[in-house]
């Protein structure tokens, strides 16, 4: 594996310009002062109750995501490029979804094999021919970006269903500003606090035609036991909208209402953080107690907007991912600004053969997996694990993709033995309303806290950092 690009020191150890002031500050600040503030940050997080749950971990039903106090910094120029690329990508995602559930031009042009769509469990036949307001499917996208050198940002994954993490982007900034006012005074950091306003504006802009001039927006959560519950309540609070569960909603005459102390009140837009499968027991999983019976029929009648739309999983599926550059070209006629990671489709015999020959150097991922589970990181895996994956691949090649092991960039991070480079990625949040796409300058930087680890997922020992975009 190649040497990783360091965000602060580049490849050769020359201090990069965005980090100059931070580096100076770090030299002036005694290590124990840093440690003291790190502890203070943890205390703040615990008191605020910013926790997440790890499934299958009874010991720690609520855990804190470790927060690293050293910010990750990008220059304005880098951000401008990223922003352009992200907007382009999300526009293409929305056009792709509209097309898949309507005319299917892209299939007729033989750009994507049909069975990848129709055999795909996340494809929703219920959405065929159904119009969604303003043709927006992905109102909130979280695009995972990695950096490999000074010039290249690469998309690792598109999250077009119910991406989470934005509360950490906002809370990390709040806490950093409280703990390090001196450091902020020495930088010009672009603010992220407009995110809730922009999200609300985007949600209101896509209200159905039958809504009143002041549409009612609600955030739907699976409930307190969901791992991202804190984020749901945090966002509802910041947006000033009701945080509803399925049992708070009822469908009457194809309209959706919430039960309030003053009787039923119509809801026009639902920012739902509940997966497709659990939305409506009459349409999807009949055993779902989280959903609202009849919701899909109100949706079909055009009386409710769901954000994100139902069926967006087909756009962020790992099997579709490898076609994203073609998707961008097909709908926009533009070259993709953000590149993809080179991806081997194990369903194609030629690719499979290559993958099987090079397992110890590749990362193999389940097409439908997420959260960093069920993947093989070749260079770090034991022989036995590799052989187990080989069997799985032979048995069900269409269930997997493979990618070269990338050297994710690193960023200085507090560790037990002082500051040390740790691998990071970046998840910016892209909002799409009726006629605009916006991104607040920043995102969630996730950091793999274990030395050498490339897995940044919070469920697997990852932490977060505040992400600074420097204003010119």
């Amino acid at each position: 594996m190649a040497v990783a690009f360091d965000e602060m020191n580049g490849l050769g150890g020359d201090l990069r310009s965005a980090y100059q002031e931070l580096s100076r500050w770090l030299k002036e600040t005694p290590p124990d002062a840093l440690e003291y503030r790190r502890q203070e940050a943890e205390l703040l997080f615990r008191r605020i109750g910013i926790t997440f749950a790890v499934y299958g971990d009874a010991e720690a039903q609520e855990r804190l995501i470790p927060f690293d106090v050293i910010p990750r910094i990008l220059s304005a120029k880098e951000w401008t490029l990223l922003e352009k690329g992200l907007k382009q990508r999300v526009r293409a995602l929305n056009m792709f979804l509209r097309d898949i559930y309507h005319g299917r031009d892209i299939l007729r042009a033989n750009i994507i094999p049909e069975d990848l769509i129709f055999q795909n469990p996340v494809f929703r036949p219920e959405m065929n021919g159904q119009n969604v307001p303003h043709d927006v499917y992905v109102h909130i996208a979280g695009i995972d970006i990695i950096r490999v050198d000074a010039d290249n940002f690469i998309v690792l994954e598109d999250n077009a269903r119910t991406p989470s993490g934005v509360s950490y982007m906002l809370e990390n900034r709040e806490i950093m500003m409280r703990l390090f006012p001196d450091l902020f005074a020495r930088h010009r950091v672009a603010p992220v606090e407009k995110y809730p306003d922009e999200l609300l504006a985007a949600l209101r802009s896509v209200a159905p035609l039958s809504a009143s001039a002041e549409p009612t927006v609600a955030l739907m959560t699976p409930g307190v036991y969901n791992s991202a519950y804190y984020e749901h309540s945090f966002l509802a609070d910041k947006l000033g909208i009701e945080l509803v569960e399925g049992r708070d909603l009822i469908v009457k005459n194809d309209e959706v209402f919430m039960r309030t102390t003053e009787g039923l009140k119509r809801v026009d837009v639902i920012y739902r953080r509940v997966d497709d499968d659990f939305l409506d027991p009459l349409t999807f999983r009949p055993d779902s107690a989280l959903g609202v019976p009849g919701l899909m029929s109100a949706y079909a009648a055009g009386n409710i907007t769901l954000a994100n739309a139902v069926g967006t999983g087909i756009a962020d599926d790992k099997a579709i991912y490898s076609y994203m550059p073609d998707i961008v070209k097909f709908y926009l006629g533009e070259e993709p600004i953000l590149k993809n990671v080179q991806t081997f489709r194990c369903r194609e015999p030629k690719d499979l053969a290559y993958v099987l020959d090079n397992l110890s150097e590749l990362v193999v991922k389940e097409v439908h997996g997420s959260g960093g589970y069920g993947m093989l990181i070749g260079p770090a895996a034991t022989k036995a694990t590799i052989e187990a994956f080989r069997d799985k691949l032979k048995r069900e090649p269409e269930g997997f993709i493979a990618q070269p092991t990338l050297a994710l960039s690193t960023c200085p991070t507090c560790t037990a033995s002082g500051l040390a480079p740790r691998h990071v990625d970046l998840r910016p949040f892209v909002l799409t309303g009726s006629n605009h796409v916006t991104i607040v300058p920043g995102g969630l930087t996730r950091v793999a806290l274990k030395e050498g680890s490339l897995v940044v997922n919070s469920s697997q020992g990852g932490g977060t950092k505040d992400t600074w975009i420097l204003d010119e």
Partner: protein
Amino acid sequence: MLSRTAENLYWLARYVERAEYLARTIDATLRVTALPATYIGKTNEWDSALLTAGVGASFYEAYSEANEQNVVEYLAFSPSNPSSIKNCIEAARLNSRSVRTALTSEMWDTINSAWIELQEVWGKGTSTREELAKFLRFVQETSLRFDGSAYRTMLRNDAYWFSRLGLHLERADNTARILDVKYHVLLPEEEHVGGPLDYYQWTSILRSVSALTAYHWVYRETLKPWLIADLLILNDTLPRSLASCYSNLVRNLDQIGVAYGRQGAAQRHARGVRNRLEHSHMDDIFQHGVHEFIQEFLADNSRLGEIITKQYLI
């Protein structure tokens, strides 16, 4: 607001109030049982602590004897007692988490910090009297902080009113239950074969509703059982009296009614109970029978809970 949010706020306040009441009950019982036997007679004070907490029957399913260790464990820490202090605080936190958006950060911080302390400091219960005293103080202070932060930081809207409804309904229930268990020591002298023993029972009752000092300020007399009953039932100036709880319930329900532009069964029922309390005299109550009066009140109070639930919370 969402019915579920109102329900959570209502129960949150009930749980916190109940936790405090249990702490006071344990505290008062500890004081009485510390007295020499000649002062308190043969009654088992720990048994009556269980009764005032309304968990007498379930206790004996798990324990054979009501002594200090067992009762304190059951009332304060037992996971199998659904209304132990520990479970109350846990339920309060769970309710808070569900309605975070309706709580001020001060209220959330109070409950969340209490929950953290409960696990980190009190996870194994208490082993000495001193620790127990510290624990009981912690519970009472949590309740005071919660109440105070609600009072000082919440918007005066339906969220506040529903939370107050839970508090006063629970408080009325607690005061009435203490009276129900102890009514026999509150009978007027001529009807009661009491002696100096009862004096400590009386102070114990007053202590559990934090009204010992108040008694002296209101009546400027030595302790007299019928005056104690008067204070706890009819005196509107004592925050834990039944009359005061109902003034508050009526007021908060009226505020909800005005805000929503609609009155209902809850408002009517609460007003009915309040009016009865307003027009009662202790003489009549004694004539009618304290026990019967309290029983009727308890039934009316839990009926109000049902009506509020039906009218607003589901």
